[in-house]
């Protein structure tokens, strides 16, 4: 690195810039992104479970409410919950096929989103349905969980397919 000349009276010129679209008003485009350190904290066992082929929900230790998603405390009474294994087979409560999406997912379209329901579990689970043509998806269809072999520690480590495949 060159030594800084602190007595220089000239601000150094740089060869960096942006895309300039327009001068009046001045409109420009530049890129920005960050590295972000994220912790799943108390929800970590859910993601660890996906890596082992387990789907974990929550059960309230006080009122017995059951949840299809991780919640360390009960949304009905506030008491701590314990982990419970969710059945790997469930039914489609509702669904959609997305032909567009946020930029991050555009190249994955079309993809089908489903809410999974289980008897005896009070709430649902959001996931993707794979291997079923959009026109063949139906509310009430039986589906089963599958897991990615190479975990990414994301909720997409689990996805669903038709129960009879």
């Amino acid at each position: 690195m060159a030594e800084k000349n602190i007595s220089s009276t000239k601000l150094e010129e740089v060869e960096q810039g942006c895309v300039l679209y327009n001068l009046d008003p001045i409109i420009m485009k530049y890129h920005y992104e960050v590295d972000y350190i994220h912790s799943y904290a108390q929800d970590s066992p859910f993601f660890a479970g996906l890596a082992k082929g387990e789907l974990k929900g929550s059960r309230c230790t006080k009122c017995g409410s059951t949840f299809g998603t991780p919640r360390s405390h009960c949304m009905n009474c506030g008491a701590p919950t314990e982990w419970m294994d969710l059945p790997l087979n469930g039914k489609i409560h509702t669904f959609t096929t997305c032909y567009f999406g946020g930029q991050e997912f555009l190249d994955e379209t079309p993809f089908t989103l489903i809410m999974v329901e289980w008897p005896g579990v009070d709430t649902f689970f959001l996931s993707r349905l794979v291997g079923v043509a959009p026109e063949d998806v139906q509310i009430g269809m039986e589906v089963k969980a599958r897991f990615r072999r190479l975990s990414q520690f994301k909720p997409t480590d689990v996805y669903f397919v038709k129960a009879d495949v």
Partner: protein
Amino acid sequence: MRPVYMVSGGITKFSKASPNKDFRYMVKESFDSAMADVPDLTLDRIDGSVASYFSDHFTRQLMAGIMVHDYLGLTPKPSRRIESGGATGGMCFQSAWEAIASGRMDVVAAFGFETMSHVNTWKGNEFIALASDTNFDYPVGGFYTGYYAMMVKRHMHEFGTTVEQLAAVSVKNHKNAMHNPYAQFPAELTIQDVLNSEMVSDPLKRLDICVMSDGAATAILASEEMAYKLTDKPIRITGVGTGTDAMRLADRPSREVILLPHENPEDYKNLKYPGVHSFRGGRVAAKEAYKMAKIENPLEELDFVELHDAFTSSEIQTYEDLGLCKYGDGGKFVESGAADLNGKVPVNPSGGLLACGHPVGATGLMQSVFAFWQLQGNVSKHFGGDGALQLKNPKRGLIHSHAGTGTYITVSIMERGF
């Protein structure tokens, strides 16, 4: 609590992009147009402000609220920023109401804006989807239209709602906007046009969904004493209500319907509620606001409604949450013409979000301004002489602002105070 009035309002024309004006300038434009309507209101009589904008990502500027407050010449008076997703504007309106109802202030400027044009539409969709649980919902396919599509699929399954009924909402609102010079996307459409538009997330098509916008709006609220000093046509805010629900759509329970005064438990014997087909938060907000405004039967006692139709489906779901019809009858309600401009209770006479646009932080305040002009009987004056959207002698209107998948919802009742 002291009575609270709205004394003036202003909006900018909502547009796809506004590169010649930044957010401060846009708010200033809406603020000045509100101030011009009440000449006796000088800056020194404003006690403080509330700022409304949704996304720091769109602005790429933290504390943008104070930059506007500063630009308007209101420093060093009190100000605060409100953020509650799509309901930010409605919540800002209620925050200003609280400042006056409590006696803390006599005149408050509630202003809002959003500048969504700085990223492309699909990046914008990604920014909006960050308002869903980023651990569990966003990574699965973060896309709000997808979430709403799942909700309406279940609504169709439970109640038999049809895509033609959804399309009828789009036709109605775009048509109303033909006479609203502030609207971004007025259009004469047919049901078939909507059904033929590009599929985005089944069953929601391009014309079932509002567009992204740049825009700003300002509402000025005042105490009773100040209101009658400033204008001979003040509009009283007689009820406010706010409801919430779980962030994750998956976490919605299945319970019994929360009833409004005119409903019976027998109406909903086998309905699991809210599930993902209805907005419990909207029902709670309506219930609180109706109680304060002493409304027993909303269909009979409201003259019009400006509601948050980010999707055609959410307008239908909201008819039901607000008790304009029974749960499940929303599709038939729009089909019957009851929500038309000349219907039993005109819904979104302005054109709503679908046609006006949805610059998030401005949207809820825009609704208050349209409702205000409607109740003052001043639509023609503000719409360049076109009075086609002016309802005949309306006395009471409702505004409804809505966030997330029904996560924050506000309902406010406005009544003629003269």
